């Protein structure tokens, strides 16, 4: 447990010591801010004191933002050889993967905290459904956990950050829309399976403030699976 935290701490420090962190935060806040407040079907268009717009915008910004965050995490260590340094210390493959995961999740949570002023602004305009806001943020956090774990897996199978980024996006796009589209085309059991695999439906019910066990199982099992795969990829030592 402590080892995991030491690894996360180093990751967070190196992230905030580089310009990278600030550029990413700025990008995330600019994009979600623009689309929530100024462009397209923004809050003023909708005309309701609701953060639904923000949640559906963040759904997409995080989709692109997270692979950029996770792409270097293991790939860079593979490329520079520091992975060898780390894994010959009393650190297991699993602790390394979990340390990276925790660091990325904390970063996303920090970014999400920066959007909190918007909640206050909107709630001052009208009557805000607090359950929906809470569900929405929980949904975003869980969605982030899914994409972070996929991103870390993608980062663990290569030593090239660009390959890691594109692989993460490629896998992610299935969960983001393709499974949802397939669920529409197929009927019966296959349709059910695709519907369950699609992240959209689980996320939407969450951001409405409805927390279902099926959704919780979904959001927990995918990260566990992806991180397990990352651990296995690491165990092969890229040989």
């Amino acid at each position, binding site marked *: 447990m402590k080892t995991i935290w*030491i690894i996360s701490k*180093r990751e967070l420090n190196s992230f905030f010591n580089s310009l990278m962190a600030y550029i990413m935060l700025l990008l995330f806040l600019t994009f979600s801010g623009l689309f929530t407040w100024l462009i397209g079907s923004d809050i003023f268009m909708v005309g309701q004191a609701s953060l639904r717009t923000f949640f559906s915008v963040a759904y997409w910004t995080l989709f692109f933002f997270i692979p950029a965050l996770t792409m270097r995490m293991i790939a860079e260590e593979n490329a520079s*050889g520091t992975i*060898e340094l*780390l894994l*010959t*210390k*009393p650190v*297991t493959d699993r602790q390394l993967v979990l340390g990276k995961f925790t660091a990325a999740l904390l970063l996303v949570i920090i970014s999400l905290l920066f959007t909190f002023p918007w909640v206050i602004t909107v709630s001052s305009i009208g009557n805000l459904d607090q359950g929906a806001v809470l569900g929405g943020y929980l949904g975003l956090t869980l969605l982030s956990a899914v994409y972070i774990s996929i991103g870390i897996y993608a980062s663990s199978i290569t030593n090239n950050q660009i390959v890691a980024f594109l692989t993460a996006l490629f896998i992610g796009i299935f969960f983001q829309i393709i499974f949802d589209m397939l669920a529409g085309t197929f009927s019966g059991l296959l349709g059910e399976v695709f519907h369950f695999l699609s992240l959209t439906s689980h996320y939407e019910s969450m951001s409405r403030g409805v927390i279902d066990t099926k959704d919780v199982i979904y959001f927990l099992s995918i990260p566990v699976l992806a991180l397990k795969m990352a651990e296995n990829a690491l165990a092969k*030592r890229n040989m």
Partner: protein
Amino acid sequence: MDIKVENITKSYGTQRAVDRISFHVKTGEILGFLGPNGAGKTTTMKMITNYLLPEEGNIIIGGKSLLEDAEELKKHIGYLPENNPLYLDMPVIDYLEFCAEIQQIPKEKVPERIREMVRVCGLNQEKHKKIGELSKGYRQRVGLAQAMIHDPEILILDEPTTGLDPNQIVEIRKLIRELGREKTVILSTHIMQEVEATCDRILIINKGRIVADGTAESLSKQVQGQELLHMKIEDGNPNEIFKALQQLPTVELVDFMDRQQNRFEIQSKPEMSSRREIFSLCVEKGWVITEMIPVETKLEDIFRELTMN
């Protein structure tokens, strides 16, 4: 803690990088791994540090199997990998702190250990710089510092002196010698003088197999066998001297090195010395010996002999 390596094997694809290697290193011993590039030195070290798992065989450290107790045993190993990978974006001090923490050194002892390592490795002036800003020699020192920060009982150093200047090399070798008194040290190198200067025992590896194991002395005996002399004998006809030398009972082979200068190369028969006989011969004939150099087999020659096909 001693290290017992038993028949370990590792292949990359179809190529066997390490082929059933076995050896034993005792506490207080410095073992030097010698071998041409691609001989399997680094792969063997990676297996001893539990980075790679052997396909066959076992590694036993202090009586425990590395395959079963890896997490516990790794705490006792300090490792300097080949090419010395480091987090270039971290300041030296932060990096050492990170290494100390991850080695589970108690919190109150961390500053003391860092200070000690900074002193031992001569990093005082550079300690606040980022590792990426350091020269190769200083990075090497940081690599050594991280390997020793938790005062491990076993040190595995893959080419520890590459990139260091001659003064630093002498210092680091001295340091390794000092450490080697109480600890178990394995170091790899392809610098012969380094092995002769630091190691108690030498292991020569070629194509994944051990081809020689012993002290520098025992190895040279093993290879040398016959005495070899380079001589210059003056005041005589070279051909006459040549013939006379060849007729000595202890001499196996005489060769001209330089006929004009009366230089000869003389090989004695196995386990015999011809120095006295040659001297008596020269006295008898009135020749003057101006040079007599016994040619010792150097580690270089042993190395070449064992690793060239």
